[in-house]
């Protein structure tokens, strides 16, 4: 698995974010929501971007999808999307027309709570027809069977569901309809923001299966934004941990969980209570302190006020992103020179 991972050489990533910076202007000053994010999203894999409130994970996505509110300012960086036809486009520099052409057909986006944004006066079938027609993909002959197979993929019975209105469906079913609607356009990159948060345990389980199947069948690139660590452990191939607007660790899921390098990653994983705890004799430990203000972030490494390993250097200068192993990134002074201090 590690062979496919890169940092510029070998296979190029589907989406390469380099030094992305974005801030919101508010009356007290500016909120540095995205401060220097460098992240490579591999093609054909499910990458999870993990962060808590204030980590900037939703802001990050809004930045490269260019759906920011009026008081947001992109201050620098690039977001190179590699298209299936071989071309490349920098989403940061792209104008609204280009973004419009990419959204839907190339980049699929399912925001948080999307199941509530279905049009209440249209049936499921009408939703599909409208979506396909809007993107010029409606074909009298093949579309119907495509819609049906897409619904089956998300484990919905087409005959039952097609004629129904959104209010007749449960939350879990609506979520699946949204996923099917997004996937019917066959986007190369799909971004999902907290897809399982409002669902009960069983619906969540079914949804995780669906997402895994979709990923395997279509071999597209999926980016999962969430704060739910156990979901990440099961569904993601790669994990990127976000803290205070910057990436602090990236790596394969298995390695990150087996041996988290960044103190925040390790403390975060240890802080989640789970039903499995009693079987593995584990007691969760909370992370001390509070996430920092993005209005006036602490100097140096943004995690240093809460970090048990912080030294003087951490308080004054922000560490760069080290790569101790191929495909494994960590933003911590402990790993400078590829060695642990």
């Amino acid at each position, binding site marked *: 698995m590690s062979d496919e991972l890169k940092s510029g050489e070998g296979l190029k990533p589907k989406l390469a974010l380099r030094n992305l910076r974005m801030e919101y202007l508010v009356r007290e000053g500016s909120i540095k929501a995205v401060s220097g994010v460098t992240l490579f999203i591999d093609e054909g894999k499910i990458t999870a971007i993990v962060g808590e409130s204030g980590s900037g994970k939703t802001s990050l996505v809004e930045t490269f999808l260019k759906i920011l509110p009026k008081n947001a300012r992109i201050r620098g960086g690039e977001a190179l999307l590699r298209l299936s036809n071989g071309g490349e486009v920098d989403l940061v520099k792209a104008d609204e027309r280009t973004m419009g052409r990419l959204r839907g057909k190339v980049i699929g986006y399912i925001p948080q709570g999307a199941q509530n944004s279905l049009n209440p006066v249209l049936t499921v079938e009408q939703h599909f027809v409208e979506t396909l027609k809007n993107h010029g993909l409606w074909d009298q002959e093949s579309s119907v069977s495509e819609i049906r197979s897409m619904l089956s993929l998300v484990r919905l019975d087409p005959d039952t569901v097609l004629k129904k209105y959104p209010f007749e469906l449960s939350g879990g079913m609506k979520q699946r309809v949204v996923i099917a609607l997004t996937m019917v356009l066959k986007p190369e990159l799909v971004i999902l923001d907290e897809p399982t948060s409002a669902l009960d345990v069983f619906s969540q389980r079914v949804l995780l*299966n669906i997402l895994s199947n979709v990923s395997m069948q279509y071999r597209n690139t999926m980016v999962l934004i969430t704060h739910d660590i156990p979901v990440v452990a*099961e569904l993601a191939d790669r994990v990127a941990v976000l803290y205070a607007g910057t990436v602090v660790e990236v790596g394969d899921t*298995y390695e990150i969980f087996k041996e988290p390098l960044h103190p925040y990653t390790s403390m975060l994983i240890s802080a989640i209570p789970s039903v499995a705890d009693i079987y593995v004799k584990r007691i969760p430990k909370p992370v001390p302190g*509070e996430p920092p203000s993005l209005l006036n972030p602490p100097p140096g490494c943004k995690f240093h006020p809460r970090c048990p390993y912080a030294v003087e250097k951490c308080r004054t200068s922000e560490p760069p992103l080290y790569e101790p192993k191929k495909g494994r990134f960590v933003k911590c002074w402990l790993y400078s020179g590829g060695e642990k201090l």
Partner: protein
Amino acid sequence: MSHVASVKNVSKVYTRGVFRKRLIQALMSISLEVPDKGLISLVGESGSGKTTLGKILVGLTMPTSGELSWKGTTVIKDGKITQRDIYLANRHKFVYVHQDPYTALNPSKNVKNILEPVIRRYKKHLSDADRFRYIKELLEEVGLVPAEYFVDKYPHHLSGGMRQRLSLARALIVDPHLIVADEVVSMVDPSIRVSLINLLKKIVESRGTSIVFISHDLGAAVYAAGDSPMYVMLRGLVVESGPANEIIYRPEHPYTRALISNIPVPLVLSERKVRGLDGVIESESARSPNVSSLCPFSQMCPLLDAECSSLTPGSYMKVGPNHYSLCVKAGKLPRWRPSWLPAASG
């Protein structure tokens, strides 16, 4: 053993619709006791009735039938208040803390002004100087330190976790007998959930206040209760009750087993593998026809058979010293292990 609050055969039916014809049964025949100076967990998905039960325990909601007792005295029976003066005198000692830290605090008031009205009401004897000191101690008790920093902050200056601590501080002013903490960690960052639960445990220990911890997160509920009782609820009924740790090790209800098995857990395999739905019948066609049962899990249970039609809500099978299950097959259930446990070890 004394109980700080208990309900016996309590049910709650809501009437909806223009003519009040539509009936929604939120709770059906629930009996449970909240031990003195103890913490219990109520676990269930939304719609299970856990919030309704929590509100009934503190007197915010009137049950349609059944009895509510506080410290041994029956205060509500069959929809009427039986001991009015005791009820009114003690109502404020049974406090409900809301889930949403963003709406449970008045956004136009700062910390001091949120706490002060309650302090003036219940600690009249304090002088101005004493009151300030009391606020300081209270904030320190809930972990909002340094207190001086927090007193003039407004809710929107505080994080979700801090707001919940403030809600708890406000509740502690009345020196409550019981705090019902309804999903208090659900809207809080995962990394500090445990510290909030630890705070609740500390409150039980230091003040002798009982706590009912309501959550849809089984992991959090088990961590909170430990060996104390946990009640698993489904569609208005308690399907299993017993020491939380024991329920996780030896669940005696198909629903509990399905819950434990299907929750995502952070045990990672070297290759991505998403487990399938375990212990739940998803499609209607796979169900046994001709079996109608009052069991709340019957629509999805793989073990449904003729025996299940004999189920009576409110009558439980005893499967351990304090461990009860609503399932008619409890004690005879097939051997089980959660699907995420590696086959080799035990």
